């Protein structure tokens, strides 16, 4: 969840906690650490690799089997650094969407239509590859990016990411060996991974999630589902319905990630 902005000032009906304290304070010993600069494997190995052998067994992990199996990418019943080596899946759908948006706009070629083919991708890659070594480095990309760019609307899920640098956006996902160079083979692999029907063609805008967002949850005019929840420190609780007739309540649902 990104840092939120609150443009309104003055007294407004935000939720207030009722002072009906019935629950004990939360054990402060479980205070987690906010780490946004480390690595997932670093976090997991410090926490679970009790014998320090570089592998986390189910016994060492101790949490649910479903999560263990989800993380055990190679299925060897151990969590190791290899399970968390750079893969597009680790970086999530949002970064994949950014990388795809970059390729669609910077590698489309002269045939400006609603699709991009694998052949077009490699033709444009060759245009970037000034020294012909089948590797596109940052300087080569930036030298030709403006000329190759096609101004297409961004899908909603990419717009949500805000401004991004196209080279960094594509490298974050496509540069599998993390050598700082965009190999033709890596471009091809990314294209094929996104080519669901294996016809060597991308339909532009096919990954636009905006149209897929359904409207759900309680509708305007319906009675708000009641609930009673506890504050993060465990020292107090509040019931939504207790505010009816007193003040409106803004509900902001979210999480740290």
């Amino acid at each position, binding site marked *: *969840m990104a840092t*939120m902005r609150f*443009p*309104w000032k003055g007294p*407004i*009906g*935000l939720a*207030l*906690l009722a002072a009906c304290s019935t629950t004990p304070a*939360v054990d402060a010993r*479980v*205070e*987690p650490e*906010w*780490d*946004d*600069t*480390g*690595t*997932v494997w670093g*976090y997991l190995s410090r926490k679970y690799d009790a014998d320090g052998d570089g592998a986390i067994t189910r016994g060492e992990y101790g*949490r*649910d089997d479903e*999560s*263990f199996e*989800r*993380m055990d990418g190679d299925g060897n019943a151990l969590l190791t650094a290899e399970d968390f080596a750079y893969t597009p899946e680790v970086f*999530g*759908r949002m970064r994949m969407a950014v990388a795809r948006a970059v390729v669609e706009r910077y590698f489309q070629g002269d045939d400006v239509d609603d699709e991009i083919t694998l052949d077009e991708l490699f033709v444009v890659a060759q245009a970037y590859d000034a020294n012909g070594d089948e590797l596109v480095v940052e300087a080569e990309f930036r030298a030709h990016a403006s000329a190759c760019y096609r101004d297409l609307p961004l899908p909603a*899920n990419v717009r949500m990411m805000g401004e991004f640098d196209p080279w960094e956006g594509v490298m974050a996902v496509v540069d599998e060996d993390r050598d700082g160079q965009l190999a033709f083979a890596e471009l091809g692999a990314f294209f094929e991974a996104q080519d669901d029907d294996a016809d060597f063609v991308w339909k532009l805008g096919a990954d636009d999630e905006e149209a897929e*967002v359904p*409207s*759900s*949850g*309680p509708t*305007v005019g*319906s*009675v*708000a*589902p009641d*609930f009673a*929840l*506890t*504050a*993060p*420190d*465990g020292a107090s*609780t509040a019931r*939504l319905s207790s505010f*009816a*007739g007193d003040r*409106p*309540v803004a*509900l*902001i*649902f*979210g*999480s*740290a*990630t």
Partner: protein
Amino acid sequence: MVYIREAHALDGDSPMGGDGMPIFEDPVSLEERSGIARVCMTKLALEPIPALVDGIDDAVNLAYAAHPDRLYLVGLDGRIAYHGFEGPMGFDVEELAAAIRVELGE
């Protein structure tokens, strides 16, 4: 704020972590989720906003179809006055602010 299930827990369906994104596992207890909520409120300077933590059964999250993030306004009459679309694309604080002003008659 109602603190709900992590959107991108490292062991979840859409794992992320590091490189600017906080690294958290999906909590398995209210205590664990509350701990992350406390850290989040402090780290993002959200402490002026009263916060509550959804139970580990995600009951309120499910009732409001809130995952991964969402905004609602409950009016004086206890009915939904504003219903934002699902986040992140539908998470629009300007819309919520406008709905609050309408509800307060400003």
